[in-house]
């Protein structure tokens, strides 16, 4: 075998199959599947012998080919009925057709690439760092921040007006405590953005302490309070 001729780089199993079909001048819609499978497997063996790295996709295609071959060899069940038996090669042919189109498209792009490589725009003018400016003033920055803070406050206020009850907060605190021996006082209050929410949380906590469902402990004077 003239290995040198065969040593080409294939983009994938479909590329290799197309190559085999072209080389043997076969009809894509009437592939002699036994022949092409043997040919394909020879290539795989050959790649192996050369220790060439090839992707697993080549093996997947090999098993697909063998599967199609076995189906063509079996007497078709459908023939008993009047229906036209489906050609097991049809799907493969469709895939090959589509792949071939894009292969062609790629070669047209390649031509354009070659033309375009010979056309030069100007070398870019590299701007000096100090030439860069920004389309915003300090005032815009302050303004954005103030508006945002205002917006956030309003949103939170609207949420509170919806309904935040002490009972709900109690449940939330108990959820927080679940599977934990203690949590820090601050943890319970973190995320409480408004006074109203802080008060509700505090009331909930007092209620829990009254019910002796939780205990407040302070390890050191002015240290963290643990619940």
């Amino acid at each position, binding site marked *: 075998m003239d290995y040198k001729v065969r040593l080409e*780089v294939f*983009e*994938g*199993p*479909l*590329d290799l199959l197309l190559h085999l079909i072209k080389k043997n001048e076969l009809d894509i819609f009437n592939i002699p599947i036994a022949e092409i499978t043997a040919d394909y497997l020879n290539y795989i063996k050959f790649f192996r012998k050369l220790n060439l790295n090839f*992707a697993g*996709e080549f093996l997947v*295609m090999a098993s697909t080919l063998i599967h199609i071959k076995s189906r063509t060899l079996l007497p078709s069940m459908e023939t008993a009925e009047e229906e036209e038996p489906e050609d097991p090669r049809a799907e493969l042919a469709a*895939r090959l*057709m*589509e*792949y071939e*189109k*894009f*292969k*062609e*498209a*790629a*070669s*047209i*792009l*390649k031509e*354009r*690439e070659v*033309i*375009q*490589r*010979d*056309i*030069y*725009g*100007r*070398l*870019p*003018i590299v701007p000096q760092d100090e030439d860069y400016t920004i389309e915003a003033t300090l005032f815009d920055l302050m303004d954005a921040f103030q508006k945002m803070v205002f917006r956030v406050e309003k949103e939170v206020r609207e949420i509170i007006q919806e309904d935040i009850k002490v009972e709900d907060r109690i449940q939330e605190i108990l959820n927080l405590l679940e599977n934990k021996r203690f949590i820090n006082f601050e943890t319970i209050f973190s995320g409480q953005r408004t006074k109203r929410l802080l008060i509700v949380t505090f009331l909930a906590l007092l209620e829990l302490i009254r019910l002796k469902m939780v205990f407040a402990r302070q390890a050191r004077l002015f240290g963290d309070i643990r619940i």
Partner: protein
Amino acid sequence: MEKEELKNIIECLLFFSDKPLSIEKLTEIMEIDNFDETKEAVEDLQKEYELRNSGLQVLNIAQGYQICTRNEFSRWVRKLYKAQTTFQLSLSALETLSIIAYKQPVTRGEIEKIRGVDASYVLRTLLEKKLVRISGRKKLPGRPILYGTSQDFLRYFGLKDLSEIPILEEIKPQASG
């Protein structure tokens, strides 16, 4: 503004920029309120460059205009510009790009189905080279990323816009049949 003046300003702007400038951008900078006037002036300039048999040409690429050297003088420019990286796209990159160009927006899975091989590496390279961009996510389980071609893609291949992709016309009728 007079037409001659418009043309001169446009020449200056196109000369200065190393990227294509759109009609909209040119119009905005020149402070006129008529795209057609700009377009007419650009096209006049383009014709003038052709007629006077210049070493330069006014190209219509990537939805804009740019002054570039003509192909036949590339050899001399390359000599001046020794630092030029001779970067060329691999065949797998070109195949992947043509699938994206024609089928965009398209997922990695769809590309892999057509090419029959893994596309993650080549997609990363194309994204790095900014020839491909992420155009969104498909409304499917896993929300796969959708890929499309970029402005740089058009520039790289010297295309005016996507409709100019020569391959589209050839593939379209076949794809449906």
